[in-house]
């Protein structure tokens, strides 16, 4: 009887110790996990950049200017790719610009949405990839790659001002 009581006491002590250790270390785990998440974001490579990104201070005008220039460069790259008729954009001479001059009727404002061709709720980059692979018979760039982001930038720049309307199905060509 005495032995049994001692054992129960020990078990309780162990449980309390474990719970204590977990509750004390939990904030550190969360912090570590968040740090890892931030580190995996492209562009935020250094400790300084990460701090700036979360500091809430007014952005440096130089950073804004650099950002605008970077975006313009990406739109220009997207424009070139949009008109591309050679691999990897196209294997059959078909270019994005033929069906979608000025990125017309691409409707980025309706994405993500269910695409029957893909069988799931897809992002606009997945849809761009489908167009490169099937009508253009090309080789799609990986999602989130510089080229894919450039194509998305060109598309969105040409469609600026559209009202966000996720899932909508446009009625005319």
């Amino acid at each position, binding site marked *: 009887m005495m032995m049994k009581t001692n054992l129960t006491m020990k078990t309780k002590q162990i449980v309390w110790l474990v719970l204590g250790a977990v509750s004390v270390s939990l904030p550190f785990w969360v912090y570590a996990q968040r740090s890892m998440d931030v580190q995996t974001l492209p562009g935020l490579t250094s400790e300084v950049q990460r701090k700036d990104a979360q500091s809430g201070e007014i952005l440096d005008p130089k950073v804004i200017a650099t950002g605008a220039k970077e975006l313009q460069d990406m739109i220009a790259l997207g424009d070139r790719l949009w008109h591309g008729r050679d691999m990897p954009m196209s294997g*059959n001479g078909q270019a994005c610009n033929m069906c979608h001059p000025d990125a017309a009727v691409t409707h980025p404002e309706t994405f993500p949405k269910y695409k029957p061709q893909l069988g799931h709720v897809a992002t606009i980059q997945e849809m761009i990839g489908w167009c490169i692979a099937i009508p253009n018979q090309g080789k799609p760039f990986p999602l989130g790659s510089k080229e894919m982001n450039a194509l998305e930038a060109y598309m969105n720049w040409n469609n600026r001002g559209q009202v966000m309307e996720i899932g909508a199905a446009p009625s005319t060509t």
Partner: protein
Amino acid sequence: MTKDKTQMLLEAQLSRRDFMKISAFTGIAASLGGVVSLDFLAPSVGQAQSMAKPFMFAVMADQHTMGPKNNYMKLRVERCVEEINKLSPQPDFIMSMGDMVHDGSDEQMKFFDELIAPLKAPVKSITGEHDWFLDMGESYGRHYGKTTYSWDDNGVHFIALNTVLLRDFWTSRGLSAQERMDIAGTLNNALPGPFHVGEKQLAWLRDDLKKVNKSTPIILFSHSPLFYYYKPWNFWTEDAPEVHLLLGGYENVQVIFGHVHHIVKNQIGNIKFVSTLSTSWPHPYPTSGVPAGSPKMPRANPGNTFGGLGWQTMKVDGEGEVEVKFEEWSRPKA
């Protein structure tokens, strides 16, 4: 020194001095209170007034074949050829509305010619910019002959024009033939500016119409829309209003055009305009410029190889009225 365009158009019918004389004469006659007919002043015409005989022709457009590297374009032309061949009775003729090939080369035209060789009815053609700007119509001429011509059949006067002429944007820039083709063939490239019919063809049209009675139905084939539709995509013929002036007074004028790859209709005065479906890809409707009252086709399914594409039959009745039937592939058959 080139003559003012309006002046040239006026001269074709009446000189300014003659016009003043007639005006003065009309004024005097009206003041005398008499009923004056000016019919005798109308230009004489060689043809007797004729009614059209009902008939049918087929139209295929904007095939954009790119040789063996693009199987989709090939499949679509094959389907078009197969379906036109199934028509019974066969059409009087088939009009190919231009942009038969995408890059203007002799090889691509040979490839296209083999695809349409099984067609049973005779084929006529007009040129599109994609057929033209690699060698400025040299290969086109070898394969399809003239680009500006007319003929009379079943009481209708048919006219075919080259409406894809562009200003010389290549010489001063030292562009290669391939670069010229690529720029002219990119819908939204602003460098070449809008399409033109040009003075030479306007003069030809003026002469051609002299022999046509005002009551004779006219059907005119043009690759580009012969009206101002949407300039940023070159759905635009700069001197279209001059063609309208020449066609003024004719009772029944139907213009059939390609280039826009979707269904659009318009009417300006006595002239009706109808576009044609392509067999390559559907172009979107522009955000402005679609004529009021024009039908719009439903959104094409990019997952359907034949979505938003097709060809058409055109039935002409005794009055010369053209009834267009769009054989749109993505629509369920009635």
